[in-house]
């Protein structure tokens, strides 16, 4: 999905040919941190300081906002320390389209960086194209350190046969869920209502939002009581209400899969989902849901909630953080809510997204065709250095991070006052799309935006989640055949689910059609997928 390039290949082509003679003579220039320097010496001869750097090519799938990589100070340092000079191809869009052709034709760079930039399925399909790093890790002590301190990072990096093609990242600071629930407290106060705690109370509150002039601008009809980005599943979705039935989602369960007491299930064919759809249909019929919920795009979804000046438009919705969802001006009107109970005596849960927010697989992958594997490993090692991780994530020491001098650090506010901290972060550095390791021992004070996120997560944090038995483990490694079967099945199942969900919410009729739908979903491959996932889940639990 990303594209953008900064490579000057025509100029470099000649240079690369000349330089390839020196391919093994990169070497470190003595600036390595800790144990890193020893390993990189193996192939290094002299001359690193005289500018004979190893030329590498790399692709980075970065965020469109991110500035050119060559402008990142920390990255210059990493390249410097590793004795390499990387010619970056920066991709911000259409990576999937480019990738297929690139991999199938074998025309690949030395290095790929990006979130799951090469998937497990790619690795299985393009055997021999990617370098197995498992035997080379002694050249990257910083990566070994990560594997030692966080054994799960090794687990999610290893293929079933023990090979490691892609290295993960670990960033630890993100909360346990991506989605928080917000309600307009000012509206509640204006209308003298109390905070809803169950679905039925929510209904009553939304009706009041709808019928009265909740935002007090004189127009009783411009309030949108409830909104979500559309469809079923994923972050910020109405499916999060299912937590009120005691169901624990995993990463927002974009395709409906969740675990309950060690059993893999899919809510799309669960009775509790049926009751949610009935409830949503009741809301929709009463005009309480944005009528454009199934058609608006994300831009519109966001801009509607930003209201007009001080006048809020949306009553109840979900989002990452209030200032992002409603804009700085309206954010103070909203409060983060506890999960709503389906009925007064329901047990509540929420979605557990910690793994997908804090870990990432295949963030960096090496080509097996690379002529400078040692140099690539040196680069990887420097990238995973403990004091580099925070710079990959938040930006360079200096403009983005302050060294407090006592071994602790703080993330600085944006230099451009007009910019919010999130945009600033994404502009300044690779951010979450990079490959890095942030040790748990690092003392870093986060920026205002992350503190806000953590603050607003408190109502959710109060919910206890049985991570061992109710959460689907992230990053399981399926075999390539099962991967493609499941992909195919999920496409079909989601086709059915999306269509029916939209129809049932807007027009009703779920009672009569439910049984047929469940059967059809199972036939479309849901049953097969659940069997596969259960098998892998059980294996995972046994370990």
């Amino acid at each position: 999905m990303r594209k953008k390039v900064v490579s000057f290949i025509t100029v470099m082509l000649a240079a690369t040919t000349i330089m390839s003679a020196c391919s093994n003579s990169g070497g470190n220039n003595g600036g390595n941190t800790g144990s890193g320097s020893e390993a990189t010496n193996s192939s290094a001869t002299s001359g690193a300081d005289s500018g004979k750097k190893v030329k590498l090519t790399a692709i980075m799938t970065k965020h469109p906002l991110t500035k050119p990589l060559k402008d990142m100070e920390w990255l210059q340092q990493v390249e410097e320390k590793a004795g390499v000079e990387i010619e970056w191809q920066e991709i911000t869009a259409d990576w999937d389209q480019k990738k297929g052709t690139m991999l199938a034709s074998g025309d690949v760079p030395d290095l790929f960086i990006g979130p799951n930039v090469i998937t497990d399925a790619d690795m299985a399909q393009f055997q021999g194209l990617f370098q197995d790093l498992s035997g080379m890790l002694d050249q990257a002590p910083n990566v070994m350190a990560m594997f030692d301190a966080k054994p799960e990072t090794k687990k999610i990096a290893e293929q079933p046969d023990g090979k490691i093609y892609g290295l993960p990242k670990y960033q630890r600071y993100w909360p346990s869920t991506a989605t928080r629930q917000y309600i307009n407290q000012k509206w509640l106060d204006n209308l003298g209502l109390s905070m809803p705690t169950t679905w039925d109370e929510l209904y009553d509150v939304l009706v009041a939002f709808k019928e009265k002039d909740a935002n007090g601008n004189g127009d009783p009809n411009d309030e949108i009581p409830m909104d979500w980005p559309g469809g079923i599943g994923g972050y910020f979705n109405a499916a999060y209400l299912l937590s009120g039935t005691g169901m624990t989602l995993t990463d927002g369960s974009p395709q409906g899969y969740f675990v309950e007491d060690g059993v893999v299930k899919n809510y799309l064919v669960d009775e509790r989902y049926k009751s949610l759809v009935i409830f949503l249909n009741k809301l929709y019929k009463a005009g309480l849901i944005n009528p454009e919920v199934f058609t608006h795009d994300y831009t519109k979804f966001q801009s509607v909630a930003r209201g007009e000046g001080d006048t809020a438009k949306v009553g109840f919705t979900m989002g990452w953080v209030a200032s992002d969802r409603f804009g700085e001006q309206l954010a103070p009107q909203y409060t983060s809510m506890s999960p709503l109970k389906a009925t007064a005596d329901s047990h509540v849960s929420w979605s557990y997204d910690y793994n997908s927010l804090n870990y990432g697989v295949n963030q960096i992958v090496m080509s097996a065709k690379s002529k400078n594997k040692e140099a690539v490993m040196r680069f990887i090692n420097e990238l995973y250095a403990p004091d580099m991780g925070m710079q990959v994530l938040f930006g360079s020491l200096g403009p983005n991070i302050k060294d407090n001098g006592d071994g602790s650090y703080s993330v600085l506010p944006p230099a451009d006052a007009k910019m919010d901290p999130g945009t600033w972060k994404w502009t300044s550095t690779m951010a979450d799309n990079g490959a890095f390791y942030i040790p748990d021992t690092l003392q870093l004070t986060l920026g205002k935006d992350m503190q806000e996120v953590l603050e607003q997560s408190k109502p959710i944090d109060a919910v206890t989640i049985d991570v061992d038995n109710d959460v689907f483990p992230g990053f399981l490694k399926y075999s390539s055949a099962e991967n493609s079967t499941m992909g195919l099945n999920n496409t079909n199942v989601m086709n059915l689910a999306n269509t029916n969900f939209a129809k049932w919410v807007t027009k009703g009729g779920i009672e009569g059609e439910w049984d047929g739908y469940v059967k059809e979903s199972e036939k479309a491959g849901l049953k097969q997928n659940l069997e596969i996932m259960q098998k892998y889940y059980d294996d995972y639990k046994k370990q």
Partner: protein
Amino acid sequence: MRVRGGILRTFVRDYQLWIMIAPAIAAVLIFNYIPMYGIQLSFRDFDFSKGLTGGAWRGLDYFRQFIDSYLFSDLMRNTFLISLATLIVGFPAPIILALILNQIRRKRMKNLMQTTVYLPHFISIIVLVGMMNVLMSPETGVIGYMMKGLGLGHINLIASTNTFIPVYVLSDIWQHCGWNSIIYLAALSTVDPQLYDSAKIDGASRLQMVRYVDLPALVPTIIILFILSMGNILSTGFEKIFLMQNSLNLPVSEVIATYVYKIGIISNQFSYASAIGLFNTVINFVFLFAMNAASKKMSNTSLY
């Protein structure tokens, strides 16, 4: 023997013609025909380590998989309906537009009109669909307001199984009708003015002149373009449909092209995707073939 001599003689006689067409033949052979070995991917597994043509031979397995897929009939129906609607409504539109524009006598008005109608062609599909969403929004769009004003009530044009095809086809006409009429306008510009003069002398009205002078002048172009568009009977614009899709109109908007995309992107199923593509192509080709034969018989006009 006579035939061989004939061929040789034509080579000698027409050597200039051969020289003129040689570059085009060379270009087509190199850039179109050489890569065609890739078609066998539809009949083989894609196996990277063995190269593009080294995977195990699967015969028609992938085609069978597609035909047996439970979405097959829906996909075929949707694809066919959308293409057919585009053909029936969309094909005559530029012809009519060209005939109308050709009637404008005032030069400046004609220029203004021509330039205007061809403008929408340059809008990218992403923007077009974005615009449709804004303009047709039942709450805030100008078309939404107009429909409310006309008492048509609260219909969400972009999210209904009934309105998807009309909206798709009409927006297509809006965007490309002017552009497609260029070719007809050019054809009309070659009509001999003497024909108009003699028609006038015969007392023909303007409408009759359109009917008996302009339209016949367009016939060869119309036939050729019609045959070519029949060859696209199962081709629908992927990007636009994909962007227009939402969960409410999905029952009618899922077409072969969008399905292939979803399958391909999710699981890199090169072989399966390639087989579905080939299936689609073969059907198109058969339609083109049949149309061409029919046209050759009826009007003596043919593609080849």
